[in-house]
């Protein structure tokens, strides 16, 4: 384990067999356990400095729980999380609070995630103050202006309220706020799902530029493989709390090995009527794609390296599959 330990420290963020279980409690009279939801079940992965990792999966597969666990908003049930060699999962609650300045999140809905009563200036200066509490006056103003420029907002609008901005601009404010405390890691949870196609591409361009210019490490969570393909360096496909396939974005999209990844890919409609008419679809038998309960315990996922850097789960797949060519 000790040699593995040193290996773990070389990477920026390391997850080692992380699990997040939710106890459903007990029945009122019989006191029998209602079971445990294994929202995240034995996930190990590493992220390098400056890398964008895409996490893809259907709703309920545990991708949001995983990102909340990484942020230590939820303490993991078991497993270890290291950020730059420091074991986050072992820190006390007070230390975690101090550490949390290093992680920031961008949420799906910029309407709900910004305080409607604060101007952009107040929102950003508050966030900057977390890293630089002594910054005041002109210096603070200069920093806010710089941030707004970075995300493509007009600094003249700093005294406006969120409702005065369009959806795309609001998401830019949310991104600026996430960048304000100079985080080491940004987790973007479906940041473009609520936006129109043309605004979607503006925000994706912005995130990609920020990551290359600032060396930002990012986890990009989405259910849309076509968006993740564009932005991520590597993709992890999650299914029922486990990683089912992981590899470079090209490998996952062009050469998906696991039937589940193939099914996800085949469900994306192509913006081409002729291709659509011929598109072969892999349909999965319907089943709530929710998390696993203790009763239907399956073997823990083993990831097998099929091609260097491309891992596929060896776990048997429990959904029936049929192939349909229909339009």
């Amino acid at each position: 384990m000790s040699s593995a330990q040193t290996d773990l420290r070389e990477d920026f963020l390391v997850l080692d067999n992380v699990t997040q279980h939710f106890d459903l409690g007990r029945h009122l009279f019989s006191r029998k356990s209602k079971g445990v939801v294994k929202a995240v079940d034995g996930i190990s992965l590493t992220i390098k400095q400056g890398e964008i990792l895409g996490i893809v999966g259907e709703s309920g597969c545990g991708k949001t729980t995983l990102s909340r666990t990484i942020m230590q908003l939820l303490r993991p049930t078991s497993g270890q999380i290291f950020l730059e060699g420091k074991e986050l999962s072992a820190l006390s609650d007070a230390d975690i609070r101090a550490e949390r300045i290093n992680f920031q999140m961008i949420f799906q809905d910029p309407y709900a995630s910004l305080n409607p009563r604060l101007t952009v200036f107040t929102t950003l200066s508050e966030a900057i103050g977390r890293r630089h509490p002594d910054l005041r006056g002109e210096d603070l103003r200069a920093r806010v202006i710089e941030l707004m420029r970075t995300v493509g907002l007009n600094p003249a609008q700093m005294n406006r309220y969120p409702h005065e901005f369009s959806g795309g601009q609001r998401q830019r404010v949310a991104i600026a706020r996430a960048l304000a405390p100079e985080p080491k890691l940004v987790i973007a949870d479906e940041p473009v799902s609520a936006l129109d196609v043309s605004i979607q591409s503006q925000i994706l361009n912005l995130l990609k530029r920020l990551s290359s210019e600032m060396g930002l490490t990012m986890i990009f969570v989405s259910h849309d493989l076509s968006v993740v393909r564009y932005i991520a360096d590597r993709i992890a496909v999650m299914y029922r709390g486990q990683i089912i396939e992981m590899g470079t974005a090209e490998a996952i999209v062009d050469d998906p090995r696991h039937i589940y990844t193939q099914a996800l890919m085949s469900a994306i409609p192509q913006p081409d009527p002729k291709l659509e008419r011929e598109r072969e679809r892999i349909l999965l038998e319907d089943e709530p794609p929710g998390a696993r309960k203790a009763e239907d315990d399956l073997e823990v996922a083993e990831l097998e390296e099929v091609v260097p850097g491309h891992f596929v789960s060896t776990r048997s797949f429990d959904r029936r599959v049929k192939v349909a060519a229909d339009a």
Partner: protein
Amino acid sequence: MPLLDVRNLSTSFHLRSGIVRAAQNISLTLEKGETLGIVGESGSGKSVTCYSILQLIPQPPGRIESGEVLFEGRDLLKLSESEMRSIRGKRISMIFQDPMTSLNPYLRISTQLIEAIRVHDNMDEDAALKKAITALEEVGIPDAASRVRSYPHEFSGGMRQRVMIAMALVNDPDLLIADEPTTALDVTVQAQVLDIIKERQRRLGTAVILVTHDLGVVAGTCDKVQVMYAGQVVESGTTDQVFYNPQHAYTRSLQKAIPSLQAKNEALYTIAGTPPDLSKPVLGCAFYPRCPFPKVKDQDGPAPELTELSGGHCVRDCGYCDRTKPIETVLAQDVVAEETP
């Protein structure tokens, strides 16, 4: 006679800040069994068009200024509210974008479905319940007989959208208007939901209007497409015409902006600028300020008319820009364009 024939429908909202012309001169026709896709950005007037057809526009501030909505030859705009109520949900029904907010959280699914049936059909409660269960089975809800007693929160997002579809289809409508029915859903669930609608259409010949901003969904489901921008139809035609021979600058920009079509290491194409403020009258081509093509002449005249090119392919051709070159050669500089808020 087409099933639905909308002619020059204009809807506006009279607000304190001015008159917002949300939909101007919309015309569309739909035959039995056909699917029409309406595409455009938010605020382009897609939903207002649908709401106007069903007269679900709150009046005031909304007002249907002019036009006709001929459904089987009858002008819906001339009907009284009670006549309209007998058409809504029975002959024409609608699925809304957000299944979380369009079901009543306090009532069981059975209550809501039975109400939808009994409003139009004078049947007793037991028969209505049986019909409700069949409707749920038809949209693929497993164990419908017991699930019908559940509350909306007991269903997942995809299942809830199926309940909405079941409710919309329970009275076998001739026309189904689906306003972004899959936007809030996962790709896999989206595929299932679209399959249900298509299957239904094949079996009963239901006509469908599908409002979406996803061109992929349109390519796979629609026979005809209308592209809307700033409250106007800028291009319409069969799906093949619009996808393989797009004429309007907006249609071509929209097509170019799809992330899945772009190489990974290039910046994504974005449409510069923002849609125009509809409370101010639009002069000339509404897309002119954002148009990526080189301009041949200044924007001066009135709004260009929607003219037919060939075989039902119509475009609002302004003649202000040169669209002979493909968009990629016109636009290599778009990383800069992205920065203009």
